[in-house]
């Protein structure tokens, strides 16, 4: 045992060169290509827009008295909160993300529960069917909905040939289509964490509840649901966080009259070439999502540590 520990420590010797390199290489990559770029966004969000290339003023400058001066330009943030367009887009994005999350939960929970209670031999197959669409192109799956929802699309054609409707219902470029697209694209993210939670439940708890006279619905709400809450939280955050910043789905399926905040950011950057305002939008999105992200990270690190 002692020998084992000693040799093990050797590998993990704090000053071993190899050991340092193993952790330093990925760390350096992430510092260079994730942290520093992010700090640049933060910096530019406090800069003044200029008609130049790059189109923003430096924060640090040497004044004529050779004093280094920092100009923090808060106008970009002030602008975001004074213009109704931005506030409206932020609120709309949060609403879309929240409603989509609830819809994903309503559809995904019964699916996850059903898979978890299926015969073990069939579980892997069913799970694979959930994951499979995730491996095909996200963009193409969103695009598929245009073909279904168009005025002369499959759904309208079907309803008209059944004489349920007289003329096509306009569904593309509508708010409903955005919900359909988001729920469709993010459903697997809800099902997977729910399933991995539900699968671990001890069946004898439900049998005990039944023996004590609880009807299945009561057993569900008193036993299964409370136990599955960590899975619900993880799934909800995995849907909510990316949905707030979603860009592709509302651009392809949504109305041009109501923009989500991801689209506003991209328009500010590419159309208006206002880099400081685009950066400020990015920082505000991040601040809004910071709470959910921290909750999710806590949950995830607990899961990793709980694993044997």
């Amino acid at each position, binding site marked *: 045992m002692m020998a*084992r520990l000693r040799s093990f420590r050797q*590998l993990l010797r*704090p000053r*071993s060169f190899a*050991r340092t390199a*193993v*952790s330093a*290489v*990925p*760390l350096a*990559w*992430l*510092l260079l*290509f*994730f*942290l520093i*770029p992010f700090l*640049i966004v933060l910096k530019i969000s406090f800069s003044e827009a200029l008609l130049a290339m*790059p189109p923003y003023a430096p924060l640090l400058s040497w004044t004529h008295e050779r004093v280094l001066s920092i100009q923090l330009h808060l106008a970009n943030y002030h602008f975001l909160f004074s213009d109704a367009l931005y506030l409206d887009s932020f609120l709309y994005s949060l609403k879309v993300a929240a409603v989509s999350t609830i819809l994903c939960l309503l*559809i995904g929970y*019964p*699916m996850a529960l*059903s898979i978890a209670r299926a015969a073990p031999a069939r579980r892997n197959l069913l*799970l*694979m*069917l*959930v*994951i*499979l*669409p995730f*491996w*095909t*192109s*996200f*963009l193409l*799956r969103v*695009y*598929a909905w*245009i*073909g279904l929802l*168009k005025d*002369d699309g*499959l759904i309208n054609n079907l309803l008209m040939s059944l004489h349920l409707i007289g003329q096509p219902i306009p569904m593309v470029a509508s708010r409903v289509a955005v919900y359909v697209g988001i729920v*469709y694209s993010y*459903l*697997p993210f809800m099902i*997977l964490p729910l399933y991995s939670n539900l699968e671990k439940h001890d069946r004898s708890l439900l049998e005990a509840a039944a023996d004590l006279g609880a009807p299945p619905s009561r057993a569900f709400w008193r036993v299964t649901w409370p136990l599955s809450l960590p899975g619900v939280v993880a799934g909800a955050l995995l849907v909510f*966080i990316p949905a*707030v*910043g979603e860009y592709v789905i509302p651009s392809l399926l949504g109305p041009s009259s109501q923009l989500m905040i991801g689209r506003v*950011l991209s328009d500010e950057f590419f159309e208006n070439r206002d880099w400081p305002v685009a950066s400020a939008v*990015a920082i505000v*999105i*991040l601040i809004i999502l910071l709470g959910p*992200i921290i909750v*999710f*990270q806590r949950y995830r*690190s607990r899961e*990793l540590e709980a*694993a044997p």
Partner: protein
Amino acid sequence: MKIRRSLLLPTMLAFGFAFLYVPILSMIVYSFNASRLVTVWDAAHSPTLKWYDELFGNAQIMDAALLSLKIAAMNATGAVILGTLAGFALARFGRFRGRALLAALSTAPLVLPEIITGLSLLLLFVAVAVDRGFWTVAIAHTTLAMCFVTVIVQARLIDFDMSLEEAAMDLGASPLRTFLAVTLPLILPAIAAGWMLAFALSLDDLVIASFTTGPGATTLPIRIYSEVRLGVKPEINAVCSIMVGVVGIAVIAASLLAKLSGTRGAPARV
């Protein structure tokens, strides 16, 4: 009550799967439709392969596909190397300097909206004044994909205790030899899964690529997006069918391989 309840869940499961698969299947079916009006089935001339023919003759789409495959392969290989190092360090090194930073930085890109990652990388590339194109997209994708690989490798390593590695070192193997002879074979399924996931992520990414690309480097999703914005195109249906076919074959092959080798193919624990 009991019977109704036992039927309720499977029914909802079936509806859920219909919701997931009808759009994909409809696209595959209509890729064989002769009519240019995508939603009108031309029974007289269908099924036809003419859209596949046009697709392979469309130089713009083919060039974009080739570029995307190159970027995806480059990205997946880089991501697997960086992610395996990071996952190994996080799972096996205990406490070390920079651990908290590495753990935070390797999970942050997973939860950050892509649009913020894309914007920040573009601003970096502008700040250091590099020409944007193949390499900037590959670097951007590697940064995101390595985090997925880190999670998968770390989870796989945590599932195994260290006694095998310790035993190898007791028998006199050097740390490097131990890693190559013991650890690497253990995590190989996770590395393979990570490579495939990284490849798929890169092949699929529109947002980060459109921020970090430059003139002359149009990836497949960027090309598809610009075609699709103007309406439904039968050639794009053909792209989708091919992609579903390739993915389907890959998944079936992977599960057969896992069965043959008798090991549990590590399903991506993301």
